[in-house]
């Protein structure tokens, strides 16, 4: 009588040989590569994250708009000469006006290439506070903020980070999204957007979750739609407004915002909740204005704050030393350079 191990392995080898002779679906790999490419694109924080070229006096920069990689680049106004000067220190803070109530933590610039112009790992808070991180004994770049420890770069798992530059937005819910970066030019695409949250929020509406979902519609990354973000019985639609009209799309559980056919023509993107108890609707809206890109402020090179490494020393996932919430974030009084 045979052993289970031998039977499984014999069955595997016979099957693999037969598959090799019959041939595996040639579209399997290419289809997966296309899907992976779409995910990488969606993970990009800004529409032009990877190639947001700042050309200053020329006045126009071309950047990829995400989605179909074969689509031609769109032309948008470039950042001002002030933003072009950020190339001296390219760590532009995330646009706080585009966050809404999203559970946002910080933006991380990771460029571990040996020949990088600005090598290292830098985190920037929405208020412009920024810190340069050093690796711990295990080569990890950890950052503590408001009592949470974030893995900004962990070479053992994100091993690709030492041969490419990336920008990653981290959220307080533990999620993160990012994309390629050229390591030199400031990331400014999110300055084209402003998110408005009404002051009066009906009971049962979670504006943090809705804001996170809304950001998926403006290329900034976020969580898929969760039905628990609205009261029971309510329904939510994505509303995309362009100069030529408005389209509405029902939001299903887990879905991201629908992509706009032409990003540059979008005037606003909204999530509209209907069927609220007592009637009425509630909307959060992201307004699009490419002129906003012209108003980007650089971080102040002199305003660097040293992170408290003692909060992350010896930290391990699911354990490690307790991090006290107070005093864990860098001082928020740093100003942005004009």
């Amino acid at each position, binding site marked *: 009588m045979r052993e289970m191990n031998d039977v499984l*392995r014999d*069955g595997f080898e016979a099957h693999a040989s037969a598959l090799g002779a019959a041939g595996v679906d040639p579209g*399997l790999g290419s289809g997966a590569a296309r899907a992976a490419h779409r995910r990488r694109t969606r993970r990009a924080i800004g529409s032009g994250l990877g190639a947001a070229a700042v050309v200053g006096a020329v006045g126009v920069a071309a950047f990829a708009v995400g989605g179909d990689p074969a689509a031609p680049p769109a032309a948008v106004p470039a950042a001002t000469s002030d933003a072009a000067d950020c190339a001296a220190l390219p760590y532009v803070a995330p646009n706080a006006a585009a966050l809404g109530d999203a559970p946002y933590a910080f933006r991380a610039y990771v460029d571990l290439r040996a020949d990088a112009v600005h090598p290292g790992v830098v985190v920037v808070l929405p208020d412009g506070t920024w810190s340069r991180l050093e690796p711990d004994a295990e080569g990890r770049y950890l950052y503590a903020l408001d009592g949470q420890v974030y893995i900004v770069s962990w070479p053992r798992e994100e091993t690709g980070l030492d041969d490419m530059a990336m920008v990653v937005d981290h959220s307080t819910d533990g999620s993160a999204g990012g994309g390629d970066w050229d390591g030199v030019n400031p990331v400014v695409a999110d300055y084209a957007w402003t998110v408005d949250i009404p002051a009066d929020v009906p009971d049962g509406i979670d504006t943090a979750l809705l804001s996170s979902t809304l950001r998926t519609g403006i290329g900034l990354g976020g969580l898929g739609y969760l039905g628990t973000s609205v009261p029971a019985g309510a329904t939510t639609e994505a509303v995309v407004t362009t100069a030529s009209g408005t389209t509405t799309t029902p939001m299903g559980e887990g879905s991201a915002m629908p992509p706009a056919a032409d990003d540059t023509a979008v005037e606003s993107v909204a999530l509209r909740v209907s069927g609220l108890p007592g009637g009425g609707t509630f909307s959060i809206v992201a307004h699009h204005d490419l002129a906003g890109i012209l108003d980007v402020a650089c971080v102040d090179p002199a305003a660097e704050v040293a992170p408290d490494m003692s909060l992350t020393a010896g930290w391990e996932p699911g354990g490690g030393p307790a991090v006290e919430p107070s005093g864990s974030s860098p001082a928020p009084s740093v100003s942005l350079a004009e």
Partner: protein
Amino acid sequence: MTRWTGLVEELMRERGPRLVAYAALLVGRDGDAEDLVHDALVKVFSRPRRLSTVGEAEAYVRSTMPSIVIDRARSAASRRRARDRAFERPREAPDLDAGLDVRRALRGLSPRVQVCVVLRFFDDLTVPQIAQRLGIAEGTVKRYLHDAVAQLAPLLDVTADWDEEPRTVEVVAALERGR
């Protein structure tokens, strides 16, 4: 063509049959196995990773498959996506005969149990390693394996006796210690 897409192409060209065969052990049917390979490829290559050789890529893709199967079992939405893709296939190709008795026997198990059996008896993981990998208790893994072996033994004509640990010997650098 980017470096990673070239690696995907090379991986499928050189190791595609082995990846599908491994996936078939986990899910039981050839068509479902191709879906699993697709999902594993997407999961692995959606993020930048240092995978420089086909061998490294094959190992990484294979290592992601068990958790995908478990996630599918947990997630109705994920199951729906897999089912939708199954419907998208123009015609269900019949499973290849080679090794079919093994796959037929395995697919009589629940997804979690099937994954445990493959990790233990094909990948030679220990019970604690399986428990850690799948995020379930060691006792649960042992129970799954005992029940599975009892079910599979008469179908595959294998012994119902098995060790909780693989029959491997850890090689210790005795000379180094003796210095």
